[in-house]
């Protein structure tokens, strides 16, 4: 962009619109990068957790087939470290109203997710240790469906803020689809049912990793990739036919 002082009114307006829109796109791309990386790491973590649970079912100990789930607590830290690594040396996307709204939305989601998960884990553990199994079965706090719906809401709200309809749809449909799949246990009933009993038991221990994997793919990775790869803003170049016939010099002098 050169120092051109002979601007028409339309060109001036185009420059202002273009730069404001670029600010929105910078936030979109940054959010897309976060969603994409978070989705990929969550998918990887789901695979690792599932494998750990699968292979520790019959090993005994205090938490057979459960060790993998402890990994979820380090997931936010891993995502943060990886994003720091990816963004090193890159120009920092400045804070604007849209970026602030997105950031605060995800802080709210993150806070609810962490508090609920810790509360549910502690309460479920107390019920297992000190109460009858019927009490646990009745009052058990399910973490996965809550987290999936919470993340889906986060993705959808982000889509509304960034005016990206696909993000809204992926968040809403992905969240509801995986929530229904989880509540009906369709994956376990249809796919795991084909395996013999010992394998079926081991496979049932990987739940809810398969649902988390699916949501991370549909609700985070794919929409994140789409945001990240969105076409850069086409430079708005003035249509000479529609320009006002007042020269830049005249405009500055107010003639």
């Amino acid at each position, binding site marked *: *962009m*050169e*120092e*051109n*002082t002979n*601007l028409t*009114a*339309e*060109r*001036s*307006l185009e*420059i*202002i619109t*273009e*730069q*404001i829109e*670029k*600010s929105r796109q*910078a936030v979109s791309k940054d959010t897309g990068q976060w969603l994409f990386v978070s989705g990929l790491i969550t998918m990887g973590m789901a695979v690792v957790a599932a494998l750990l649970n699968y292979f520790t079912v019959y090993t005994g100990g205090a938490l057979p087939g459960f060790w993998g789930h402890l990994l979820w607590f380090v997931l936010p830290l891993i995502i943060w470290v990886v994003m720091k690594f990816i963004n090193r040396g890159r*120009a*920092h*996307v*400045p*804070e*604007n*109203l849209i970026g602030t709204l997105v950031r605060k939305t995800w802080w709210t989601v993150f806070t609810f997710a962490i508090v609920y998960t810790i509360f549910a884990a502690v309460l479920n553990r107390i019920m297992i240790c000190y109460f009858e199994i019927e009490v646990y079965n009745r009052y058990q706090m399910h973490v996965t469906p809550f987290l999936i719906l919470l993340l889906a809401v986060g993705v959808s709200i982000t889509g509304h803020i960034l005016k990206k309809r696909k993000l809204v749809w992926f968040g809403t449909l992905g969240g509801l689809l995986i929530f229904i799949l989880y509540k009906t246990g369709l994956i376990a009933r249809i796919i795991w049912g084909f395996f013999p009993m010992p394998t079926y038991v081991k496979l049932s221990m990987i739940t809810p990793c398969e649902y988390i994997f699916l949501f991370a793919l549909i609700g985070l990775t794919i929409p994140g990739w789409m945001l990240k790869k969105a076409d850069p803003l086409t430079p708005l170049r003035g249509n000479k036919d529609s*320009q*006002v016939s*007042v020269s*830049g010099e*005249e*405009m*500055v*002098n*107010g*003639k």
Partner: protein
Amino acid sequence: MSYQPLDPLLHAELRLAVMSLLISNVEAEFPYIKEQTGATAGNLSVQIDKLSAAGYIKVKKTFKGKRPCTICRITSKGQKAFEAYVQALKSYLEVGGE
């Protein structure tokens, strides 16, 4: 037909782009402004100096780790000048649209 005069400092492609960028962000780093405007570092520095000398933006030189980092922030004077520029621009567009 007379129009409202436009601020000559803002009525330049790159300076207007910088001010438009800063009006929608609280503050921005030099590499970000360079990336978004597509300007060369030298040209951008000159234009930022002009805006800074007029009191439209504040330039803060700091460090990001070991690297020097220049942060530009729009001032209230700059915001008012930008608003006045947009208002003046409207008069041309209204007449042009008739």
